[in-house]
């Protein structure tokens, strides 16, 4: 497979994963802004997904509609869903012969939908959840179409490598920032706070089934970092990353493959042999930051050994 093609598939997939993350985050935070929690603020979301400075994000922190518009349809925001979907589509457009026609049409339809003026208008005057749901469904259609139509070749492997690398970083980010808002105080017993955090990454129901004792920050860390079954946990993402990286092993690029495999293996072991206690002893922030840094390094190494074409 061409290096450029692998690169485009990888980024298409990362952008789509990011889109899904942002949209779910917005949907749940909007719901939570309508609930009667006293100190709801959009600040954590803005910190994770935008490059706004402190002053700007403080001024937006209480204005749900403005945040939604900024995060979904604002052209000036490089990380708005509109811009990310556009980039995903541009990447897909240059590799149309490597994704199925169905996948391409999915992305193309998504692109045309989000560019439609009505999205912006509806976010402002109508029920924004309906609009976000439409967009989220486009993303789901993409995942499903990918699963059903794509051949399980090298391209599919790079798509999944991009997807799970992005997801691992995203989950670590979300957890870190949500905790930083509480000054990493694991004794906080704020049920609604944890409930919305879990909802935003579709982990609420699993939490209820796993932990019968109510909400405890330690268990939240356990599920989001260490669970093997929770598809958005950091460990699950890294396991999948390793699994798909195995598939791109080839004789042509043995040295590089071994090097990156070693890097991924190290992250995997590091998480696998952690416990909630060991993580908290070390400090949640340094721990998550370490994992994130190492995932970024994997991205850089992939770029260097697999995608470099200039």
């Amino acid at each position: 497979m061409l290096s450029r093609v692998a690169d485009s598939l990888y980024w298409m997939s990362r952008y789509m994963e990011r889109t899904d993350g942002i949209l779910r985050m917005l949907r749940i935070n909007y719901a939570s802004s309508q609930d009667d929690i006293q100190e709801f603020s959009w600040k954590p979301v803005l910190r994770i997904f935008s490059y706004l400075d402190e002053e700007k994000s403080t001024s937006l922190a209480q204005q749900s509609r403005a945040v939604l518009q900024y995060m979904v349809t604002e052209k000036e925001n490089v990380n708005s869903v509109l811009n990310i979907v556009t980039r995903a589509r541009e990447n897909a457009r240059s590799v149309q012969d490597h994704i199925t026609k169905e996948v391409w049409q999915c992305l193309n339809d998504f692109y045309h939908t989000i560019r439609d003026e009505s999205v912006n208008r509806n976010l402002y005057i109508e029920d924004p959840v309906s609009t976000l749901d439409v967009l989220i469904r486009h993303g789901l259609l993409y995942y499903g179409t990918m699963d059903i139509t794509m051949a399980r070749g090298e391209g599919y492997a790079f798509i999944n490598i991009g997807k799970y690398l992005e997801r691992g970083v995203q989950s670590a980010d979300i957890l870190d920032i949500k905790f930083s808002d509480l000054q990493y105080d694991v004794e906080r017993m704020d049920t609604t706070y944890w409930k919305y955090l879990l909802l935003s990454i579709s982990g609420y129901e699993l939490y209820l089934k796993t932990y019968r004792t109510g909400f405890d920050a330690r268990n939240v860390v356990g599920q989001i970092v260490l669970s093997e079954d929770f598809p958005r946990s950091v460990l699950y993402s890294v396991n999948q990353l390793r699994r798909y990286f195995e598939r791109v092993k080839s004789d042509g690029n043995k040295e590089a493959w071994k090097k990156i495999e070693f890097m991924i293996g190290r992250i995997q072991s590091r998480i696998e042999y952690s416990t909630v206690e060991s993580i908290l002893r070390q400090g949640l922030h340094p721990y998550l930051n370490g994992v994130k840094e190492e995932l970024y390094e994997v991205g850089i190494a992939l770029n260097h050994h697999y995608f470099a074409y200039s």
Partner: protein
Amino acid sequence: MQTGELLNNYNVEPNVWDEMYAALSVRPQYQGVVEFLQQMSIEELNKKEELAKRLFMSQGITFTVYSSGEGIEKIFPFDIIPRIITAAEWTYIESGIKQRLKALNLFLKDVYNNQFILKDGIVPVEMIYSSPHFLREMHGFPVPHDIYVHIAGIDLIRDHDGTFYVLEDNLRTPSGVSYMLENREITKRIFPDIIPRSNVRTVMEYPVILHRNLVSLSPRQTANPTVVLLTPGIYNSAYFEHTTLARLMGVELVEGRDLVVDNHRVYMKTTAGLQQVDVIYRRVDDDFLDPLDFQPDSMLGVAGIMSAYRKGNVAIVNAVGNGVADDKAIYAFVPAMIRYYLNEEPILKNVPTYQLGRPEEREHVFGNMSRMVIKKTNESGGYGMLMGHTASDEEIDRYKHEILRDPRQYIAQPIISLSTSPCYMNGRLKPRRIDLRPYALCGPDGIQIVPGGLTRVALREGSLVVNSSQGGGSKDTWVLAG
């Protein structure tokens, strides 16, 4: 409104060949379509038109216009009423194009090798050496199977009596074939059942034949040669076509930056290292192909690709330097070529062409400017044209001045009226001028022409220019089986 009225209100222009109507009655080949239209209401037709637009948009059959840093997706306008060609007409067109291409291929081989046609004085030497598309780099080197033109698009028009004329030969990188394929797919969706009922020949073979020809050109004796399609990239207006063809043939779509030349061999950079490339179907113009031989600042090509080509380590399709044969000034000599190389009378007619480099012909043209179209010899896409009947005196004077500065750059032709075909526009049928570009494929086994082509239509009322850059659209083109 009823569709019956729709047909009654269709007014054919006087002295123009209409594809559907002859002497106030519908030609037999259009009977089926007309009956189908009569069963439908205007609302239904409008819906069909909407559906066609939506299908083009959602499948990304678009080109992007970049303005103020933002890409806007446009669709190439499509008219829902098909253009129909009878079996007899097609047999004639097919044999004419085959003959013409045979001669043009021999001509290219000749001018880049022995130059018999120049020595025998059939084509003036200065015509060749003054052509910017004549490339010395191609001199004296055998291209695989002696084929220069692997893919050709021959533009045909019909005069008021229905006679076909060749308007232009496109022997470099003719585009539009993806619209031939996609327009058919769209018609299948908007007019269910009517295609099989009408006995329309399929165009689906095109990518299969093209792929087979490309594989057969591989210089390396290997069971599975690497064929690639070289595109200038996603900003090219024909990018959609490049991806479609790559997908339909199952070949790799590459950009210049994906390729590298080492020791006169071309490789592509893959995730598993370098992989040798055997055949390149390039959609990059000669000028940009190799910065070492041509435009030194081109980023679209591959440094050293010409050396690999000359060494015979890679096949390039179409051959480099073909522009010398589809130059608008050389066009006038094609009938002579056919007689010279094949000893046959040309089947398809040429539009009479005046060389403005010749003083007596120039005088004649200058005296009859209102009945002439002036064309620049090395421009395409409908640029650099002057239509004498609509131009102002001022424009004509300016053009005369330009011509006198470098007369070799211009030719003139009498204005041919172009046939009309009904187009569905805002609930009405209106006659609009059309041309026809069939696509011919030449491989080691001979020339094949897929029954169909691209019918381009001048959507502006009264316009005779069908190019998409000048407000043209397209139609699905049906060739009927006997």
